[in-house]
């Protein structure tokens, strides 16, 4: 079970809801992924179009824990404001703190992320900060009371996979709260590697929504995350420099 604050989840896949070809594909992808946590963003509405479709109406939101993000914020103050707006919906108390410090790399601003997270913990939110893979920052985020740490594998939407497995391993080893690898996952094998490293979960969006067949990719990610987790729990064999025969040496008939 994945435990975040007071909540428990069977699925270790957290799925984003951005950039699907249409709401029907999105719904099907969400269904087959068997995710229990959906992320989304907060934006101004078009007040003159009351009938514009909204993804929330297509999904049975009762089935999911909603994890709004603070995307769009570049300061702690903006992130706290977006978090409070999300909570004012009465639908959620979890928040993905996302404070972007650089528009080209979309890497998070570590200082503003820490400040925003600290304030939101005090305000009673269940706080999951999206952070770089800085080991000491992850430690500080845990110390101020964050309920999970979400280091990026590589830049958002880049699909580059895990570029620094060593740092992720260090973060996972030191953490007493769940570590969810967020951002940069491109393929099912990336997600499986994150889980084999000991991550408690994986958050992804573009890898599924941008795939040629998002529904099939959602299934692939679900299976990869399950396989990676099982592999981690099973404990891998140590690597050796040379071969070791799998078949017995006794009873060989020679000549």
């Amino acid at each position: 079970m994945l435990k975040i604050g007071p909540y428990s989840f069977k699925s270790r896949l957290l799925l984003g809801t951005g950039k699907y070809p249409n709401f029907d594909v999105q719904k099907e992808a969400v269904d087959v992924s068997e995710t229990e946590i959906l992320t989304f963003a907060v934006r101004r509405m078009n007040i003159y179009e009351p009938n514009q479709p909204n993804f929330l109406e297509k999904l049975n939101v009762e089935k999911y824990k909603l994890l709004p993000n603070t995307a769009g914020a570049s300061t702690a103050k903006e992130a706290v404001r977006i978090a409070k707006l999300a909570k004012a919906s009465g639908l959620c108390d979890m928040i993905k703190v996302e404070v972007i410090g650089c528009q080209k790399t979309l890497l998070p601003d570590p200082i503003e992320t820490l400040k925003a997270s600290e304030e939101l913990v005090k305000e009673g939110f269940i706080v999951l900060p999206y952070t770089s893979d800085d080991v000491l920052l992850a430690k500080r985020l845990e110390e101020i009371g964050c309920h999970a740490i979400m280091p990026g594998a590589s830049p958002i939407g880049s699909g580059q996979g895990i570029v620094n497995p060593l740092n992720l391993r260090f973060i996972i080893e030191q953490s007493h709260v769940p570590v969810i690898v967020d951002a940069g996952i491109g393929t099912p094998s990336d997600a499986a590697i994150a889980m084999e490293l000991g991550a408690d979960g994986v958050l992804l969006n573009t890898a599924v929504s941008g795939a040629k067949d998002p529904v099939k990719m959602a299934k692939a990610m679900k299976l990869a995350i399950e396989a990676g987790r099982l592999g981690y729990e099973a404990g891998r064999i140590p690597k050796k420099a040379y071969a070791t025969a799998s078949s017995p040496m006794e009873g060989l008939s020679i000549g």
Partner: protein
Amino acid sequence: MQLIINGEKVELPENVGNVSELIQYFGLDQKVVMIELNQEILEKSKHSETILSNGDRVEMVHFVGGG
């Protein structure tokens, strides 16, 4: 009454007096709408008791797809 909604000036009829009525006026009462009034975020339970005044700045936001 004139309000500034999502950064734009909007003229409203006399019968729109509180935040619930504002949401109804735009036909959004069945939607998930979050409101910020003059930089104060309003809990949903406060919508009907919160009176609007000329020149108020209102943000009306909702959830959209994102990661």
